[in-house]
């Protein structure tokens, strides 16, 4: 297990390095640059050149990359082209986005499991179809539309929840829990629906599995069958679904954050990319990429731990070539 984790971490780190290089060079190739964006209508070729020199944009891209990578190793995320250290821009925002993603994931686990079981234990029943249709609809609707409708209903119509996430300076979203309700709800409707679909399908398949039929035929009570035979089979899949959802929520909160003016990374991410603020974009790629790598690693380890055939194998599972 330790070897597995170490191996995956090494792979993840290698991926992040490759990724940083790709993005650094990629963003650099974009038309227009930070100097253009900063000067806007006041740009003249002379001022552009001067600004580029001041920002160090006139050096070769690989030299700038090496500079940046060196800084990263010392824990320095660099300086935004606006002159602000990247860590100051990202600091609290990454935590806020993580809070949004984390809360959604935590709520999603019991909801998707209960709803998925409620529907999947009776495959083809009316409630099963109801859940299937509802989850499909929520998966199909863009979350910013869902979020907008939630605002219309709960904030403007009923006036029970805030329409925007106004978090005072020095406070965190947790100090204003009401502000979290609608953003989390909007994210939940999308991601829980996806999780419900996957878990429902797994349960429906497991209910028909031979080992479940065998247990039933030999008189195991239905509750025990669910607890001992169905749930353990669903768990590895559910774990994967949950952690993959968590990975998707890393950077997947952008649209909802924008609707609610939530102080997360969403707005920074959009602005940084659009204004060619390379250091901020780079740092975000690394932070988010690392988040995804960790979530995927957790999914891998979780599946191994929850699947006896994999857990007890000293080596990768035996080959099934014939």
């Amino acid at each position, binding site marked *: 297990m330790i070897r597995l984790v170490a191996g995956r971490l090494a792979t993840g780190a290698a991926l992040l390095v490759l990724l940083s290089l790709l993005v650094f060079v990629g963003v650099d190739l974009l038309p227009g640059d930070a100097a253009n964006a900063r000067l806007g209508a006041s740009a003249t070729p002379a001022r552009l050149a001067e600004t580029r020199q001041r920002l160090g944009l006139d050096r070769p891209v690989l030299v700038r990359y090496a500079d940046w990578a060196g800084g990263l190793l010392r824990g320095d995320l660099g300086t935004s082209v606006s002159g602000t250290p990247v860590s100051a821009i990202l600091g609290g925002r990454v935590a806020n986005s993580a809070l949004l993603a984390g809360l959604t994931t935590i709520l999603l686990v019991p909801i998707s499991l209960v709803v998925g079981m409620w529907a999947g234990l009776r495959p083809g029943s009316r409630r099963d179809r109801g859940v299937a249709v509802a989850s499909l609809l929520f998966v199909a609707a863009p979350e910013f539309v869902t979020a907008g409708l939630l605002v219309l209903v709960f904030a403007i119509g009923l006036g029970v929840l805030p329409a925007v996430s106004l978090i005072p300076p020095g406070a965190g979203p947790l100090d204003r829990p009401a502000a979290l309700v609608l953003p989390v709800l909007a994210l939940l409707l999308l991601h829980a629906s996806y999780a419900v679909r996957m878990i429902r399908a797994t349960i429906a398949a497991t209910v028909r599995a031979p080992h479940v039929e065998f247990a039933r035929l030999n008189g195991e009570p239905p509750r025990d069958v669910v607890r001992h035979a169905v749930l353990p089979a669903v768990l590895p*899949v559910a774990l994967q679904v949950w952690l993959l959802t968590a990975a998707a929520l890393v950077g997947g909160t952008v649209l909802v954050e924008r609707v609610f003016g939530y102080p997360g990374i969403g707005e920074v991410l959009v602005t940084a990319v659009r204004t060619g603020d390379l250091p901020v974009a780079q740092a975000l790629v690394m932070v988010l990429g690392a988040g995804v790598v960790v979530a995927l690693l957790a999914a891998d380890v979780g599946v191994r731990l929850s*699947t006896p055939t994999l857990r007890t194998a000293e080596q990768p599972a035996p080959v099934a070539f014939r």
Partner: protein
Amino acid sequence: MTAPGLVEVRDLVLCAGGRTVLDGVRLDVAAGEAVGIVGASGSGKTTTALAVLGHLRDGITHVAGTVHVAGAPVLPGRPPRGVGYLGQDPGASLNPYRTVRAVLTAAGGVRRDRAGVDALLGRVGLPAGLARRYPHQLSGGQQQRVALAIALARDPGLLVLDEPTTGLDVLARADVHRELASLRAAGVALLWIGHDAETLAANVDRLVTVADGRVVASGPPEPARFTLTSEAAPAEVVLAASGIVGGYGATRVLHGVDLHVGAGERVAVLGASGTGKTTLARVLAGLHPAAADTVTVDGATLHPDVRRRTRPQRAALQYVAQSPSEALHPRQPVRTALHRPLRLLRNLRGAAADAEAAALLEVVGLSADTAGLLPAELSGGQRQRVSLARALAARPRVLVCDEVTSALDPGTRDAVLGLLGRLCAQDGLGVVLVTHDVEVAATADRVVVLAEGHVVADGPVPDVLGGDLLPGGVPSHLVELLRPDVADPTVRGTVNVVPSRRAAVTAPTVVSDDSPPTG
């Protein structure tokens, strides 16, 4: 029927999607009686057995008739108490997520303590030490005996057995048969759905034959015997393989195997699961890279990789795979399956190929119209015949057959084996018959027994397969050969754990970066 039976099935009619599956079945089992049900695939024998348990699989509806167990109606949906069930695939029947102890502790809806679990294991001849293992850490025979222990958890007066030894190799089969025999002796009634009448004969009091959802015969079984013949006529050697060493990654499964086949000779390669039989066949066919091997056909050495063999060499040695469902491309008609080798290996096309294809189909006992059909429109036996015809299309000198009959019902199996015999006799074809089935091996001229990747016996059929028969029709001499380290084959607790292939397949398959390794 005067005495009230333990099981009374009366005029049972079950339908699935408008098709009648059971058409007025009448069946009785008295207390302590062992009744066998035989019939071809799809004849309704499994459906009957499940109906006795009050269980109808998805899509099956109860139309008419009654099923009573111990005087109580069980249909619809009122499962009887005191009936145990054992299916044919123990690897799939056992809950892969729980240890044997956890399963047995709560089996049958009754909680029992450690001693109770050990006692249950003892009843099926397993040591208590096995309880901490997961199902995939058990051999096939042990798995099936654990499943039997679960079926016994409620102390049933009746056991419903659905082909309980079909998926097992010779050793496991012997073990399970022995335990079932002792239960029968203890007065447990058995409703045993069997593969073929011969195997069941020794185990049941009465044999019921079903066909097309009806009971067509019922009566005492005839004791089985298979005839061991030997026509060991020395012939020129067409296939010679020596020093085959191979495996997967670091795991070695073949340790220097030698094999030779004469023209017109059938050589069976017999062994338990995981002894490297299939690997051997694939090494011969050039489909599996071996660490060391020398394979010659008619004296010419073949390249270990089939893709590097010459065209005549490829044609000379043909391989027929195990599963009829995978042997043929599900979207290509039989014609394509036959035309391609004719075109590539014999340069026949157009009308000439059509004529040859028709001839090949006739050789394997299929009509010429079969050429236009898709595999899904064929039965398992027909598919296996097409698969044989495809191999024969190359005009091979040697045919390597890997468990070609294991998925077939007995009638079809005998027909295919007969066909192979004819081909040997008529065309001087050498055949390698890889099998785990003693009855199949018994039809060969010579038997090579493989254990732990070594050849442990090589000789004429009577020499190797002679001797007393253990329950389940396994010769005791063979068991000694396969278990050289265990003098008494009935000693409990096999040490060598064969990783179950099915266990790997049940691993979750959500697609992600980190889906569990499959290789």
